[in-house]
């Protein structure tokens, strides 16, 4: 796992355009631990921003990852996510913090893998934690974490009354799920 984390960190450093809302690979047996890592990029679509609460999606831009699906290596090839989010802010100020919770579906050579995630954005960067990889209808133990970059595309809404508008943002990052 340490090697995977090192690989991830190195990859993140090399590829500043890399991203991940969440990443993981799983084992094929019920309750078996999940080990894996992914570098993911997707485009987030937020119907209102900023807002105290809404639901959004993130559609695949690029994904690359490795992991074990049972004893079979699995290659992660895509990511799509849906989530609830909150980006509260104060009149006249940009939102400093944002949070989201949802599910990312990773396409892999061994079949789709679902990962639950929570997200906290601080400025233009975010920390993501993952849990509960599910592959082939089976839940697997494992929890992970990663960092991501959040790059909003203009125009941006404001915190003024009526200033919330749809937002598109590029999300890119890297995350790992540890075997537990």
């Amino acid at each position, binding site marked *: 796992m340490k090697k995977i984390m090192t690989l991830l960190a190195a990859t993140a450093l090399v590829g500043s355009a890399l991203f991940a809302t969440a990443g993981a690979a799983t084992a094929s047996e019920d309750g078996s631990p999940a080990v894996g890592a992914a570098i993911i990029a997707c485009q987030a679509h937020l119907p209102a921003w900023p807002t105290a609460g809404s639901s959004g999606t993130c559609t695949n831009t690029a994904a690359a990852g490795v992991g074990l699906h049972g004893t079979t290596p699995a290659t992660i090839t895509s990511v799509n996510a849906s989530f609830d989010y909150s980006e509260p802010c104060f009149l006249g100020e940009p939102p*400093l913090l944002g949070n989201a919770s949802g599910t990312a579906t990773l396409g892999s050579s061994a079949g789709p893998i679902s990962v639950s995630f929570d997200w906290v954005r601080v400025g233009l960067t975010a920390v993501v934690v993952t849990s509960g990889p599910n592959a082939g209808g089976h839940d697997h133990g494992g929890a992970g974490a990663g960092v991501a970059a959040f790059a909003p595309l203009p125009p941006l809404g404001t915190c003024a009354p009526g200033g919330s508008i749809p937002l598109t943002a590029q999300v890119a990052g890297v995350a790992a799920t540890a075997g537990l």
Partner: protein
Amino acid sequence: MRLSATATRICVLLVALSACAPSVGASQSGATVADEQSTSQGTAAETSTDQQSSSVLDTTESAAAAGTDSAGDAKSKGETGDMPRVKGPRPADLPFDLPVAVSSELSPLCAERGDEITMEVTTEPGAAIGYQAVYSDNGGGGAVPMGEGYGGNDRGYADDDGAFTSSWIVGLNAPSGPARVDLVVGYEGEFGYDDPHFAVADADGNCPEEWLAEKEN
């Protein structure tokens, strides 16, 4: 003539009132929004960490930045309230449990514009880390438009010993006064948070000591 003069005075008064009315309404509306938001934030913070509750009441600068009349109200309340207030950024309001252990130290605590601040973080080995400095006007250190470009917004991973070091330059446009860092850590599916305090020195090179001491306590 007397009736005409009286009518003129009434008209002038009405015109004056009608001219004032919209601005009064707008001001009250703005103040209401700011007050509601501040209350909401404060309520959440009061149920969160002790670090957050310490600056819950400080809405003065934020309200002033928002251009609302509540700035004056908040200030007067602060001056007459029972609790001592320290100006500074609003406390963070995170909806998640924050069980991951994390501690941090900043150096220097009192920085001049143009100084480099170094943050040393201690947490779990391999933990994911993101942070942003938040300044006295509630402006973020991240780049515009998500922040004000004052400096201090980055991410990374803790090493095998759980150590993470990062630094930034305090922007020449950063406002003086109390500031903090929103430091978020992710590890094995859970978050941790810390909010180390620092300050940007005023024109005389002074920093609010009570703000800096508040974190130490």
